[in-house]
């Protein structure tokens, strides 16, 4: 069954496609189709579990682009097992829930298609053993989550938030791709397990890791990229429960967990990952205390918990990785439960504002019980899974004397207990009546079984696994051996720390005035320091992008052809000129001064050319331009080429005549140029171009290496039986060219003749459509 995991992933995409093809009305069938691939995943995971936990991962080579190291190789190890199981089991709960959550007119089928597609991509991340395959699934989760966050079309905020989320994560994703390419170059293989088994080192690896961190941090909402996650709460709650608690945001942590065994010892690992994780944990917990929207409390809580996991992975030792993975599992359970509870409240009461909700606990005691169980797990209260995992983390920190990390994590955990209390009492507590808001609560109808069943199951799982942590520990230890999860650690220092944390959390909650004051003080201090908030920075960045774009557009695309040509000319001059000077190119050699006649003619050409520019009337300008041409013909005469001079005279005459005809249709005078600077610039460009061409002509003549072809022609002319070299060239040396030219001229003449005849005999047909002409 080696490629079963891959087939299960593929089944999700097939399921998504089937869902999209189904008629919109068949909701029940849609739910069944959506559940099927996830059920298959659960079965597959259960069947494989025994061998995988024994350290025998299921592997399969699925070649995609062998030449570039890209494949979809499967490696279904314990880590993949945990993720697959969580994705599928929680996914099934969410699908059931969504069926009750969405109003009949909503397009449930499309939502489920996106959700199932997302689940497939997420599982793909977990089971793929190839960097690039992982990237492909990674980006797929980004796209599907984009569509899921923006699913509630009618909300403007949802659209903005969706764009926001996808921008942040795609920036990270692209950086990560760069990191993967570098890592691939450094390691010589794109297979993750091989890279981790014999990790490369050096500058390239360091740069690669930093880029990969960017991908992981943006995906897992780490500071300073955390702000997209609260924004994405505009998503429908089932999507939030799935993406923003249990699955997608864990992808970053998963990637770090995969890389940690090989790279945790790298110099860049612990400083970056630990710092970012701790900062995120603090920021998230701190901001969660300020929210009044239940979903936002949970969102910032998620940010904080993700920071917790990241910090543990940052420390990097096996026991820390074990603790991080355990926290991840516990978090997936309690946070999805809490989200689903919020969804049920929102669905029934129409609000999630803790200032508005009141007395819900008495009205919906069972829902409140579920919430209390999950919140207690979040706060780390025994005998829930959250307690066992936090205990493991604290014990590991104590063991390794990571005092700073322990201090920060303890403070943030105390705050976690505080916002857990705030959540429970905010949602279900009874508030004193106030004149400002109308409370909602006692009249709320009880939710249906699809709305309370799934969270009840997930919440109960947190309790069961808390009492029997061995079940979780078996798998977690198989993925990250080192630590142990226990129900009751016995009286020791770690337990003391845990109790102190919860006590501190309760104490902070009991003093809301002091907390509010402190929050206010800190906010004021930060404002005084002008520390930019992450969200402000994002806004500023988008603003800046738009403003720079406007400026660039205004400058480069002003629609003026002269400006366009000016820029092109300047570029074509400066680049070669720079190359010329850079190469130490020869300076133009001035030729010897010519005869008096040449000089006089030269001066005459210059004077006439300047006169062209000064001319106010078009006709005068054209005639003067002709004068320049005639003078050049004079130059040809002086250098003994009367035939060439004659040709030029003819051409010039015809040109002037043609111009004169056209001018009859144009205003007599040039339009005035009001902008003096513009004229000066044009003159400048013209002068520089003229100078460049002159210099180039002089230089190219000066560095001739081969004898000029003209000498050969003169030498050979007598053999061809002629003395006029031009004639010989035309009729002998290049006779075939002449024949071609004659043909072209003849063809052109025929064409012109036809045109002239046609306009004489027929009315203008330019604007008559083909059909009319066909009919004629």
């Amino acid at each position, binding site marked *: 069954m080696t490629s079963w995991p891959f087939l299960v992933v593929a089944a999700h995409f097939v399921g998504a496609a089937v869902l999209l093809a189904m008629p919109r009305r068949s909701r029940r069938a849609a739910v069944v189709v959506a559940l099927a691939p996830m059920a298959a995943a659960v079965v597959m995971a259960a069947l494989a579990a025994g061998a995988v936990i024994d350290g025998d991962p299921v592997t399969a080579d699925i070649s995609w682009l062998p030449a*570039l190291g890209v494949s979809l190789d499967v490696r279904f190890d314990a880590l993949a097992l945990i993720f697959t199981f969580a994705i599928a089991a929680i996914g099934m709960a969410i699908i059931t829930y969504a069926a009750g959550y969405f109003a009949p007119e909503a397009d449930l089928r499309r939502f489920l298609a996106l959700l199932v597609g997302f689940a497939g991509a997420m599982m793909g991340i977990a089971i793929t053993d190839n960097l690039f395959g992982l990237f492909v699934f990674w980006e797929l989760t980004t796209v599907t989550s984009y569509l899921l966050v*923006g699913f509630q079309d009618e909300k403007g905020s949802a659209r903005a938030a969706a764009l926001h989320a996808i921008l942040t994560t795609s920036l990270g994703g692209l950086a990560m791709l760069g990191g993967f390419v570098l890592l691939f170059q450094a390691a010589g293989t794109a297979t993750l397990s091989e890279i981790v088994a014999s990790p490369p080192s050096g500058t390239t690896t360091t740069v690669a890791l930093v880029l990969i961190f960017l991908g992981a941090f943006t995906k897992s909402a780490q500071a300073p990229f955390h702000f997209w996650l609260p924004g994405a709460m505009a998503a429908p709650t089932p999507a939030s429960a799935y993406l923003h608690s249990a699955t997608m945001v864990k992808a970053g942590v998963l990637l770090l967990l995969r890389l940690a065994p090989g790279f945790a010892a790298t110099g860049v690992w612990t400083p970056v990952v630990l710092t970012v994780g701790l900062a995120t944990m603090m920021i998230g917990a701190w901001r969660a205390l300020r929210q009044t929207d239940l979903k936002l409390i949970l969102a910032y809580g998620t940010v904080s918990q993700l920071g917790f996991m990241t910090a543990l992975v940052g420390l990097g030792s096996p026991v820390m990785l074990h603790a991080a993975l355990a926290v991840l599992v516990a978090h997936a359970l309690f946070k999805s439960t809490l989200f689903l509870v919020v969804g049920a409240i929102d669905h029934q009461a129409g609000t999630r504002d803790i200032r508005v909700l009141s007395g819900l606990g008495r009205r919906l005691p069972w829902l409140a019980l579920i919430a209390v169980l999950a919140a207690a797990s979040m706060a780390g209260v025994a005998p829930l899974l959250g307690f066992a995992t936090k205990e493991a983390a604290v014990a590991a920190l104590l063991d390794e004397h990571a005092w700073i990390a322990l201090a920060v994590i303890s403070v943030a955990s105390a705050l976690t207990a505080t916002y857990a209390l705030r959540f429970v009492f905010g949602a279900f507590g009874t508030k004193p009546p106030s004149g400002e808001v109308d409370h909602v609560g006692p009249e709320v109808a009880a939710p249906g079984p699809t709305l309370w069943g799934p969270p009840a199951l997930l919440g109960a799982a947190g309790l069961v696994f808390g009492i029997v942590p061995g079940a979780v520990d078996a798998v977690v230890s198989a993925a990250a051996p080192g630590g142990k999860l226990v129900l009751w650690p016995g009286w020791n220092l770690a337990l003391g720390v845990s109790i102190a944390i919860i006590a501190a959390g309760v104490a902070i909650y009991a003093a809301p005035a002091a907390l509010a004051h402190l929050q206010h003080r800190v906010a004021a201090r930060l404002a005084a320091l002008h520390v930019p908030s992450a969200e402000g920075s994002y806004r500023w960045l988008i603003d800046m992008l738009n403003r720079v774009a406007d400026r660039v557009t205004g400058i*480069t695309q002003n629609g003026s052809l002269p400006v*366009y040509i000016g820029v092109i000319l300047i570029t074509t001059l400066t680049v070669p000129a720079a190359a010329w000077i850079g190469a130490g*190119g020869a300076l133009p050699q001035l030729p010897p001064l010519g005869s008096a006649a040449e000089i006089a003619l030269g001066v005459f050409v210059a004077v006439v050319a300047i006169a062209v520019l000064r001319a106010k009337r078009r006709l005068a300008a054209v005639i003067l331009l002709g004068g320049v041409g005639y003078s050049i013909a004079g130059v040809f005469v002086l250098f003994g080429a009367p035939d060439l001079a004659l040709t030029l005279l003819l051409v010039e005459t015809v040109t002037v005549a043609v111009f004169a005809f056209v001018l009859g249709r144009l205003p007599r005078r040039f339009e005035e140029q009001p902008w003096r600077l513009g004229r000066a610039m044009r003159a400048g460009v013209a002068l520089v171009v003229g100078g460049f061409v002159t210099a180039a002509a002089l230089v190219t003549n000066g560095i001739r290496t081969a004898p000029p072809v003209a000498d050969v022609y003169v030498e050979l002319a007598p053999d061809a039986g002629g003395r006029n070299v031009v004639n010989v060239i035309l009729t002998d040396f290049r006779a075939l060219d002449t024949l071609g030219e004659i043909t072209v001229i003849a063809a052109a003449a025929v064409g012109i003749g036809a045109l002239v005849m046609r306009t004489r005999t027929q009315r203008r047909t330019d604007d008559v459509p083909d059909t009319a002409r066909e009919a004629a």
Partner: protein
Amino acid sequence: MNVDYHALAPEIILGITVLAVLVVDLLRIPKYWTAVIGLVGLFAAFVPVLTLGFCESLDFCTEPETAQRVLFGGSFVVDTFSLVLKGLFLGATAVALLLSVGYIEEDRYWQGEFYFLMLCSALGAVVLASSRDLVTLFVALELVTGPTFLMAGWRKGDPRSNEAALKYFIIGVLSAAILLFGMSLVYGYTGELTFGGIRAATAALGDSALLTIGVILTLLGFAFKVSAVPFHFWTPDTYQGAPIPVTAYLSVVSKTAGFVGLLTLSYQAFAELRDVWGPLLWILAALSMTVGNLIAVRQDDIVRLLGYSSIAQGGFILVPFGAAVAGNVTGDQLEQAFFATVTYLLIYAVMNMGAFAVVIAGANRLKSTLIADWGGLSSYAPGLAGLLALFFASLAGIPPIAGWFAKLVMFSSVLGVDSGWATALAVIAVLNSVVAFYYYAKVIKSAWFDQVPDTIPAAELRGMGRAVAPSLQFALVLTAVGVLVLGIFPNLIADVGDVAKTVAAGF
């Protein structure tokens, strides 16, 4: 003279098609026959491309074959590279022709002449793919460009179309002059016209400021064709003013022709002068990506947005050239860079053609190219909105749609080189990918998440507007299948990876 007619068959068939279209146009039969003949000719010309490509595995192909057929003293070479690009040109022109059928027919103006010009231009492109000397290259390039000047101004009654054609023409002529000046300097210095000869001469004669200027001016002439900043000025105005099928043609066939010139010149003729073109194209790549993207961000017209996006995509296609900026670059890495550019060109052709096909279908229906007017497209035209998402996601580089693979090989080509400059270009490319992502996503967002604007009459929404023409449907299906197949099975391109070996041989 012993001429290998098999090798010339695509050009000969296309030439006959051009004449046939011209003659049929004179007959008093419905004008769409000109389009049919053109299309048949394009597919017919594709047959010898295939037989040449798979010559070794075909029975009737008896001549002893090497990887390439050299004709006319090395001026015209048929190798894998040129065959791949001939296929691209023929396919893209066929799609452009399919796009044109409804569009040009609708106004009923000079259909025969239009297809005649388009096929002439395509003939130029097909010749260009095999051109291996300066004169053939120039003639082929002008054959590509010349007809497009007229095509850009096809909507004679529309002042914007006139402006489009005029700007395009003036800047085009200026660039041709620059190109010729550069070529004459190269020829003057080396005394050679064929790329092989130029390469040998530069290796023997060594460096010279004059040669450097010649090379720079030649390449800058091509910068106009590929709309590299700062030679891009004509692009947005022309793209918007020209009929949209012409814009599609310009942005794919004409642009690719320019890149083919850059590829053969850089990697063959100027192979010894990497220190000249490496930095030059590095700068053009960085500028094109950045400026094209920044301006695209603020466009509210979808055609103009695609115009600027094509400038930016041109920058991405130039990125692999930037690998040559490193002094220590190896032959393998240059081959990979060459491969990256060809790959990107192939994928870009499919996805950009598809994007334009969607725009034409939408514009037919909505009578507007403003992105705001496309809001809520998914609610009344889900198929079209899905295709729009597909092609724009591909342009943005989202796997598993073709565009991502192009981006992957593009990044790899510069990241693989151990040089700060190459890495810097990769960083610029990544940042630009994100900016590009932003505006592509905005279009998708508009089509899928926004409300239908009030300005769109209800009749259009109920499908009372014109249905998508069969020719357009065919084009949409072709390109959609193309981006999906190339995205999921990029091996198809990787398998023709030896394109680099035949052209860039000897690194």
